[in-house]
């Protein structure tokens, strides 16, 4: 097991910068997720750690071992870095049995036959595939193949486990199961792990720490809950699932709370991560699932938007309600079975008809963010 220290790593493909002087420290035994959309640099960062990409500058240390240091002229091969890696495509050998696939790194390392058998057995028991040791990958399900790939990655007892979108080709149910499996195995081994994904559920379900990348830079990092509840920029907010964005005016602000004005003069109270300048403009984001809709008589009220239901749509178990105050539109997703989403006397079947005047508030954890200025979030 090992720590990782990355300093000032940069790389370009032609004129496009894919790693923009990235710095990162990962503790021994920590599980981090690199999260971001396609092209943000997360895979390039992982592949640079693996030695599959050669950055143009910077350094990467695994513990005390410099595996890449541009100034010192060090660039160790993937084999020399002694790590395990799981790929999206599994990258198994179809003509080798499960046992042979998992044994491969040990054979290449000239480990004795008896030790190979013991260690492969241990790895296959860990992923619950010892009974399939003589099968060929083509006869296994996608989830089983990915478990073979995982066993092959851990069998040499690597100091670092790298996972490059390993679940993206699996269906939803299998994905959740494999997510639990990966976390269990990582904790069992105590391995340091770096996991690349564009899926926030993977990141939230696996990581001790999530790092969001944009244009080759780490733009936010922290515990999953902190990143998902309090995104610092509009980019992060949108990426982690916020779907109501408004231009807003800061009326008044303290260090932790601010009053902002949106739409047709409606005022909301919000939490902030630092003081905002009164009179400045910002962007606000709120999750549609964290919007509370209540019947209202139409008179203005502090801390809520008063508007009219302009449309409704059934989306699976949810109802999506769009409310407008004439300037701003708010999207709310409510689940009719949960009457507390629609409070104050209740609507018929918990669904306000189009044309109904309602008050809209952010529930606790709804978020407000500013893309270029300090972020704020609701405390409703």
């Amino acid at each position, binding site marked *: 097991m090992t720590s990782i220290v990355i300093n000032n790593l940069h790389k370009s493909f032609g004129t496009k910068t894919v790693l923009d002087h990235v710095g990162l420290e990962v503790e021994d035994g920590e599980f981090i997720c690199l999260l971001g959309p396609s092209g943000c640099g997360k895979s390039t960062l992982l592949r640079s750690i*693996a*030695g*599959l990409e050669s950055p143009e500058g910077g350094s990467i240390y695994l513990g005390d071992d410099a595996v890449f240091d541009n100034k010192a002229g060090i660039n160790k*091969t*993937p*084999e020399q870095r002694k*790590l*395990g*890696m799981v*790929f*999206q*495509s*599994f*990258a*198994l*050998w*179809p*003509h080798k049995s499960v046992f042979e696939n998992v044994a*491969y*790194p040990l*054979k*290449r*390392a*000239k480990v004795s036959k008896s030790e190979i058998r013991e260690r492969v057995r241990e790895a296959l028991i860990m992923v619950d595939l010892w009974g399939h040791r003589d099968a*060929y*990958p*083509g006869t296994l*399900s*996608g*989830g089983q*193949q990915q478990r073979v790939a995982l066993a*092959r990655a851990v069998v*040499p007892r690597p100091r670092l486990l790298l996972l490059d979108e390993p679940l993206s*080709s*699996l*269906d939803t149910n*299998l994905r959740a199961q494999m997510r639990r499996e990966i976390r269990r195995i990582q904790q069992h081994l105590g391995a340091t792990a770096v996991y690349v994904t564009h899926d926030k559920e993977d990141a939230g379900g696996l990581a001790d720490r999530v790092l969001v990348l944009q244009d080759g830079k780490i733009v936010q990092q922290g515990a999953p809950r902190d990143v998902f509840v309090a995104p610092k920029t509009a980019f992060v907010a949108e990426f982690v699932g916020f779907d109501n964005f408004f231009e807003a005016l800061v009326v008044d602000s303290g260090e932790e709370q601010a009053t902002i004005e949106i739409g047709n003069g409606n005022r909301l109270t919000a939490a902030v991560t630092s003081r905002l300048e009164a009179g400045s403009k910002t962007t606000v984001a709120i999750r549609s699932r964290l919007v509370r809709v209540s019947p209202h008589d139409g008179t203005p009220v502090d801390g809520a938007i008063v508007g009219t239901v302009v449309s409704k749509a059934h989306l699976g178990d949810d109802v999506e309600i769009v409310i407008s105050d004439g300037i701003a539109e708010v999207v709310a997703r409510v689940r009719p079975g949960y009457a507390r989403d629609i409070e104050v006397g209740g609507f018929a079947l918990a669904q306000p008809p189009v044309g109904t005047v309602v008050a809209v508030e952010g529930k606790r954890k709804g978020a407000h963010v500013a893309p270029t200025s300090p972020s704020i979030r609701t405390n409703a």
Partner: protein
Amino acid sequence: MKNTTKFATIAVASMLLISGCGGSSETASQAVNATSAAELYEAAKAEGKITVYGPTENLYAAVYEDFSAEYPGIEIVTSDIFGQELDARLEGEQVAGGFEADLVHIGVSDTERYNDKGYLASFTPVEADGLDEKFVGPDGSWSVPSQHLYATAYNTKVLSEDEVPTTWAELADSDLAGKIATATPKQSGVTPQVLASALAARAIDEAWVDSFKAEARPKIFPSVANALQSTVTGETAISLVAGYGTYMRQVEQGAPLEFVAMDDGAYYSDVAYAVLDGGPNPNAARLLVSWMFSDAGQASIAKHIFEFGTMPDAPLPAGADKIGNPVRLAYPGAEKYRSTLEMLNTKF
């Protein structure tokens, strides 16, 4: 998940085992400093195995059997794999401790990429005297024993001989409106490669592309194979791009096809072997590559897969004497290929 399962199934189905009496281990042996095939064979026998990755290795089974007849005791394992899957496989092998494969058998554009990544070992085939140096990569990183010819094929029941175009200009003429089949030129593959080579050699220009689309009004198919099939069935009269080997195999099955190369340019695509650095069987791999340049290897390539050997006086594949002597177009390099692909994406 479906894609993955399909990939695995295809890969298993396409795996070939030839001369199965090898006993190679997965630990890499050392390449000997051999100057003759006999010396290489001595070292190769101890390895007993070669693993080759390439897009159509199943087609080479008969060629590899000829090799095995001359050099018994060496098992050849092949996997039909290419593109991103091949990239991922090789990366997986690197991380897992080193290459499982000994050779990649691919187009030159891919060998350039792999050489940049440091995957390839330096090796010049032994006993390949007289080989033009243009068929050897920088520092011997790959070598090209054969070329695949791409030109056009037409249905003899649909198109009479005097209607058959003989120049690129005629291919873009309205006389052939709606009669030409082509794979989508927008997607990376042999069709944009052919067009890029013709553009680079000035056999065509951008105005030709406009005219081809507007006047000839080609029918566009997802792949070269689909386009050729439409010509075989008579749905279209002529396929813009057809491989000579594919054409010959179709004719052997009774397809009413003739092959015609435009006088002002036909694309000869280099098919390269590259030795993977650190592969487990370096001497057997070097022996196979060297054999490909021998008289027996060149004859086998021409006979079984209808490719054109690169050695001086290499025998022609059957029927190739009828093709004439078109201007030879070559791969124009990654940059020109990319810019052509971008241009084609704006046109189609």
